[in-house]
């Protein structure tokens, strides 16, 4: 809408001129986005330069250790050299496997739970009880049951992120507008197909919100399970760095997790923008 209006009023004679007019706008936005982090980094560097303490590394030191972690030679007994890519891939793989299970099961079961009153009455109590247990409380159980093994981590991630997904999807399915269900029925949809033709579609915005919640939780749980239950990965690096008193590596690992979390969330956001393009202009600003 806004685009239409501006293009109408500006009426740029050539595409080149349009680019000239528009470039500063996105540049300004980009600059604003990075302004706060840059100020923070400068302040951090200044503090460590003016009052150096052994306990707080400077940004420079963090970057140096990080580079060694990424590009350094692989050495026995030195986990912090050259292992970054391997650890990132390990964590990523666990998150993807666990989240894929949680998303598939959570969306399917959520729709059924929200739509069919009988299923809801049967399972609602159990789900609410299981949800009340913090996922971290399952760590000893998972390690006992699966051992120090990938399955333990994937179980924790899948199990933990299943609940926000299933609860949100069920809630949305229950709120499917009744007129839309009736409209589909009178147009000839069979009652047993309503869940796919109407309920799933109407719940789609909530499904994407719940997936983003679940993915956030999957990253929390991968770190927890790597600290406690499995070898390798960014959570393992975090805990080892703590044991070696390496705050520089702790910071590098934290920033790594942040970047991965942000990137995976962005990916889901793009996917949802594509799937919900019918909503554009309908919600928000």
């Amino acid at each position, binding site marked *: 809408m806004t685009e239409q209006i501006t293009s109408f009023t500006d009426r740029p004679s050539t595409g080149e001129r349009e680019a000239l007019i528009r470039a500063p706008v996105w540049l300004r936005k980009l600059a604003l986005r990075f302004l706060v982090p840059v100020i923070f980094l400068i302040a951090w560097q200044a503090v460590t330069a003016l009052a150096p303490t052994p306990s707080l590394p400077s940004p420079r030191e963090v970057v140096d250790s990080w580079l060694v972690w990424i590009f350094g030679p692989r050495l026995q007994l030195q986990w912090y050299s050259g292992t970054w890519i391997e650890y990132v891939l390990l964590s990523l793989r666990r998150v993807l496997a666990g989240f894929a299970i949680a998303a598939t099961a959570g969306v399917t079961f959520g729709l059924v739970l929200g739509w069919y009153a009988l299923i809801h009455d049967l399972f609602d109590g159990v789900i609410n009880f299981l949800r009340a247990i913090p996922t971290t409380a399952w760590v000893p159980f998972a390690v006992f049951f699966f051992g120090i093994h990938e399955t333990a981590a994937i179980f924790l991630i899948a199990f933990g992120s299943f609940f926000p997904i299933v609860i949100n999807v069920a809630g949305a399915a229950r709120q499917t507008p009744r007129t839309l269900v009736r409209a589909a029925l009178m147009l000839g949809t069979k009652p047993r197909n309503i869940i796919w033709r109407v309920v799933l579609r*109407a719940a789609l915005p909530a499904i994407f919100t719940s997936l983003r919640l679940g993915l956030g939780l999957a990253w929390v749980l991968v770190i927890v399970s790597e600290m406690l239950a499995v070898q390798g990965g960014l959570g393992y690096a975090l805990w080892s760095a703590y044991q070696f008193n390496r705050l520089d590596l702790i910071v590098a690992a934290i920033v790594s997790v942040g970047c991965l979390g942000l990137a995976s969330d962005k990916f889901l956001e793009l996917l949802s923008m594509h799937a919900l393009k019918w909503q554009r202009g309908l919600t928000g600003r």
Partner: protein
Amino acid sequence: MTENRIVCRNLTKIFHGIHAKQDVVACEDISIEIQPGEFVTVIGPSGCGKTSLLYMIAGFEQKTSGMILVDGKSVQSPGPDRAVVFQEFALFPWLTLRQNIEFGPRERGIQNDVMREHVNSMLRTVGLTAAESRYPHELSAGMRQRAALARVLVNEPKILLMDEPFAALDAQTRSTLQAELGRLAKLLNLTILFITHSVEEAVLLGDRVLAMSARPGRIIEDLAINLPRPRDPTSPAFNEYRRHVDLLLEQATRTAADTETTAN
């Protein structure tokens, strides 16, 4: 049996509350006969159960007692033979206008090329060909209601059930759509049950006007409108009918107010 398209006999609908005291009688002892090709409008004070009546015929609500026959068969569930047009349009917001119209034919397993032809001609009939790839929220209210009409007419229903379809439209759009509906009804020989709260609309469109009392809803008058079409809402004869229905409704509402006072 008879050649009636829709028959309701001693139809009663009670919404049960938690206690027997909270039971609400929406319609009571309603008997109607509607012939093929007839345009029947239903009017009554708000909350008189006109929508319940329509939803029972559509198969959305179960009747408490009585009988509903459509072409001699008892109504059990909704189906494409009884098209419904809702006040709030009820287009699927995730489908484009064309996909909304294609929804019915797809569900009934119509072949793709046949369907495309039907949909194209329906888009032309309602004048929405240019907007076919837009989503419902990108359309004006008038266009949305046109699309809702096209979406059901493409199924070639014999019966059209309309629940205050033009109530959310501005006066200009409403009168255009009223004229279009009148034309389509005769062209396609549709049997229409049309609910409205506007007396003018009821008299303008209906071959018959059914006036309902306040809750519990009963039919208090079945009035044939013997005016040639297209009707002129400013003519003396039209106003005569209008005054008559107005008076009926006023009585119905007054009775409702009395009952409420007694109840309190």
